């Protein structure tokens, strides 16, 4: 299995994602600079990592969404390749129009960095199958603009189509309907605000992120 992590100027979880994927699945991981116009062949997963791409100028994710690499990422998503945007990567996918909604400033205006318990709302997606019967996952959030927003019609549609995959048990940032992660496209595009890449082995204090990568790439 093969994955790629996109590296934007200002990404700061790109290495974390690489290590998390390698250790939790054994897949090989290519690091792809945002200026590339092609991706490696045969990818099973593309990760847009956390951080502050382009310094979050204008809006978080707005400039990164226009990076050259987003053209082949979009094309791969259309072909059905799994694409996961984590934290800042979620913001990029929303700004790129690859996922509905937007991430607003946190409701209490504070940057929040802590462990959160998530409900695995839909355990049947390409990103959650490996959770099996476990309906809870603990990961950490680290965001200042993690407050998921969409209009009621969009939220109803997301829920109706079972596209909400993770919900916060205790909403840390004001996200609409406590949504922490959604899937779009043909179920192959994930946006998730908490970091599975910071919760994949015991030494990190929590392992709730490992099944996410294992769902897409196998391994245990």
């Amino acid at each position: 299995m093969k994955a790629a992590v996109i590296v934007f100027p200002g990404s700061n979880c790109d290495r974390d994602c690489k290590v998390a994927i390698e250790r939790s699945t054994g897949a090989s991981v290519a690091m792809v600079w945002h200026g590339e116009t092609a991706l490696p062949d045969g990818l099973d997963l593309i990760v847009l990592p956390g951080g502050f791409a382009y310094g979050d100028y204008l809006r978080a994710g707005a400039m990164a969404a226009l990076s050259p690499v987003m053209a082949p990422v979009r094309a791969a998503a259309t072909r059905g390749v799994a694409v996961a945007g984590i934290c800042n990567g979620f913001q990029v996918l929303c700004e790129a129009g690859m996922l509905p909604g937007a991430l607003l400033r946190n409701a209490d205006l504070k940057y929040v960095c802590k462990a959160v318990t998530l409900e695995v709302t839909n355990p049947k997606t390409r990103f959650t199958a490996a959770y099996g019967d476990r309906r809870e996952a603990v990961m950490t959030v680290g965001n200042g603009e993690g407050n998921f927003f969409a209009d009621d019609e969009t939220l109803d549609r997301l829920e109706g189509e079972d596209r909400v995959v993770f919900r916060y048990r205790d909403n840390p940032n004001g996200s609409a309907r406590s949504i922490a992660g959604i899937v779009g496209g043909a179920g192959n595009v994930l946006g998730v605000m908490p970091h599975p890449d910071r919760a994949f082995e015991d030494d990190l204090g929590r392992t709730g992120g490992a099944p996410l990568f294992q769902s897409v790439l196998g391994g245990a």
Partner: protein
Amino acid sequence: MKATVHVFLKPGVLDVQGKAVENALHGLGWPGVREVRVGRVIEFVIDAADPAAAKSEAAAMCERLLANPVIEGYRVDVAP
């Protein structure tokens, strides 16, 4: 021509910065302040045949980049 673009969160979107500023103004002795909105101003010079053309170009820029239509509205002013 000089274009000035004002970008604000849409009315239905809670502006938490605006709320915080409003509370601060109340605390400073302006209890009558209401509906504070914090937005962004973007200025630029643009070559265009006339103000109407500049305005429509700027509006297109808002739709593509300067604003996020999911959460933000915008207003464009053009001066010669």
